[in-house]
């Protein structure tokens, strides 16, 4: 308790608090700009922390990160362009809500879900880090592969155009992710001698091509010039009714647990959790047909889970010294720069650092809530900008965004190629969700598939015989087969009943 109070005292020093406030605001802005993210902010500002006290430097980086994860939903909801991969699923219902004139309601739902996700996950991370970390150590490559495969199957099976369309989209993602150096042996696959393809396809051009450029081409092609109406006048509080919160308690709880668990698994993170939570929310919903057309449940699911991954990914970083995702890897680097070694002994050796990390995340989540609450009535002003001013700026941000990450003009080709692929997939009714999910997960899937097959002499069998792995693969199989089997079972059940009804 003394350590907690001491860390709290350090963080509440006026200068440190000012740094946290400014960093959180910067994180929100970076998260909201397509192509940038809180992660990029953490990377860019890491050198600034060299001269700072460890707790203060860390506070700055964590604040940007927390702000960035929450800010990513602004672009998703208002423009249909996710600020980062962690908010991809938020676009599925957030943007249709905006087009239905419910931008502020969508923002309100996202802001509260973000806060709940971050705040509770940090509290859990504080309390349970050492215990949960021990659980993670028991998972082998078989379980990781099965988990990834199960996630893709669940999302693909929910495709409204049928399982085959969903799985085909996922397969295209797997195939595209195979381009570049293979894991383990580093063999260059499908590069055709092009050095720019050696590292594989970057996620930023894919995301901006699929969401930003594709959207602009589509809107222009359809002559879309009408700016959506925004419901600012009659909004009270967060713009979400108590009933809507009540109806989504279980949805948010489930999404929170998914986000926490996925965030805590090394190598996964918010980019995956939002998609899985969205798919689960849709499959468990009484009105799945409303998803994708502006259903608030989808926004709650996505934003609770991606923010819950913040606390989740801190657990392995603090307790094991293993980063949960790319940003925590940079944070880990920040700790090491300040001479702090993350891992099982961190709680004993540097408790003040651990608690400063967690407390900063808590403070930042409250600041995000306050800033976004005041900002949510102003953010939709962006929608009042006529398309002939808004869209050219987005195109420029897209091209500059893909360049700054890699400094190579080849990314322009990728950006345009992915925009074209997105348009073609839309035309062919191939869903984007399974494609992006499998593209993100493919490297992890392949690595664990190959590791799992080499760790024992039993080849592929442990994937089916180990309990958790077997269970997840069975779940994946059921999700794929059920769209074919369930209608037949229902048909058989309703057949005699309908005859009975007819005779009575």
């Amino acid at each position, binding site marked *: 308790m003394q350590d907690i109070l001491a860390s709290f005292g350090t963080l509440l020093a006026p200068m440190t608090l000012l740094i946290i406030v400014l960093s959180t605001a910067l994180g929100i802005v970076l998260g909201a700009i397509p192509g940038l993210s809180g992660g990029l902010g953490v990377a860019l500002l890491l050198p600034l922390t060299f001269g700072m006290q460890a707790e203060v430097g860390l506070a700055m980086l964590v604040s940007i990160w927390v702000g960035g994860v929450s800010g990513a939903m602004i672009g998703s909801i208002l423009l249909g362009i996710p600020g980062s991969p962690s908010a991809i699923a938020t676009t599925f219902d957030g943007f249709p809500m905006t087009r239905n004139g419910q931008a502020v309601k969508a923002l309100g739902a996202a802001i509260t879900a973000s806060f709940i996700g971050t705040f509770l996950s940090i509290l859990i991370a504080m309390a349970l880090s050492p215990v949960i970390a021990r659980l993670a150590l028991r998972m082998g490559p078989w379980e990781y592969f099965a988990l990834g495969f199960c996630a893709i199957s669940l999302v693909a099976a929910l495709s409204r155009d049928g399982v085959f369309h969903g799985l085909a989209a996922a397969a295209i993602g797997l195939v595209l992710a195979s381009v570049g150096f293979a894991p383990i042996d580093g063999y260059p696959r499908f590069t055709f001698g092009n050095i720019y393809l050696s590292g594989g396809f970057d996620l930023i051009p894919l995301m901006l091509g699929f969401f930003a450029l594709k959207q602009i081409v589509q809107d*222009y092609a359809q002559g879309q010039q009408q700016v959506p109406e925004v419901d600012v006048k009659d909004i009270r509080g967060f713009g979400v009714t108590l009933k809507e919160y009540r109806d989504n308690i279980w949805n948010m709880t489930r999404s929170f647990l998914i986000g926490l668990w996925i965030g805590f698994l090394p190598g996964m993170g918010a980019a995956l959790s939002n998609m899985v939570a969205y798919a689960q929310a849709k499959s468990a919903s009484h009105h799945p047909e409303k998803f994708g057309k502006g259903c608030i449940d989808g926004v709650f699911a996505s934003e609770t889970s991606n923010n819950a991954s913040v606390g989740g990914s801190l657990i392995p970083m603090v307790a094991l010294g293993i980063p949960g995702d790319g940003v925590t890897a940079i944070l880990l680097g920040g700790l090491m720069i300040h001479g702090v070694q993350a891992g099982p002994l961190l709680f004993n050796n540097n408790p003040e650092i651990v608690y400063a990390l967690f407390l900063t995340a808590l403070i930042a989540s409250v600041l995000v809530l306050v800033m976004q609450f005041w900002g949510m009535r102003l953010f939709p002003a962006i929608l009042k900008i006529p398309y002939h001013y808004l869209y050219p700026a987005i195109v420029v941000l897209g091209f500059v965004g893909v360049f700054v990450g890699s400094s190579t003009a080849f990314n322009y080709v990728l950006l345009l190629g992915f925009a074209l692929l997105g348009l073609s997939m839309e035309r062919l*009714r191939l869903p984007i969700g399974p494609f992006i999910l499998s593209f993100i997960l493919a490297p992890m899937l392949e690595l664990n598939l190959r590791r799992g097959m080499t760790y024992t002499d039993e080849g592929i069998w442990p994937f089916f015989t180990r309990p958790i792995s077997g269970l997840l693969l069975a779940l994946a199989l059921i999700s794929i087969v059920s769209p074919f089997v369930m209608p037949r079972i229902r048909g058989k059940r309703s057949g005699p009943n309908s005859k009975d009804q007819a005779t009575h």
Partner: protein
Amino acid sequence: MTTDKPLGAGLIAFGIAGIYLTLQISVRTFNDDPGPQLFPILGFSLLILCGLGMLVVRHKPAGGAEDAGATGGFGRGAAMLGLMVLYSVGLWQVGFYIATPVMLYAFYHVIAGPRRRVWWRGATYAAAVTAAVHFVFGTFLNTLLPTGSLF
């Protein structure tokens, strides 16, 4: 007309071509390791399976599904894509500071259409956005903005 059958056939052809290409990879790693071929073969096989499924199973398209290609003007979409290609060539050849204001004006001109466009507003807008991007990325974040290969 449903696109399922031609799509199914296309996926099968793509899958077969992909498996053929993958089989050209000849690398030996170590015992029990399936090597770099396994994963792409799984992906391409899944494509073939889905293609076969689309050919065999009749699926009724979801109600209300929007057919972007059919409802939208193909020519307008192609024109917008063409402008984007032109911008990427501009960034590559002449760099950010020349390509961006020129293409911003071009995008504004095309999207605004004859009724809404005002040349001086477009020019001011192009200059303002270029300056804002320069400030955010170049000055504030200190990142490298695209430089052209000609200048």
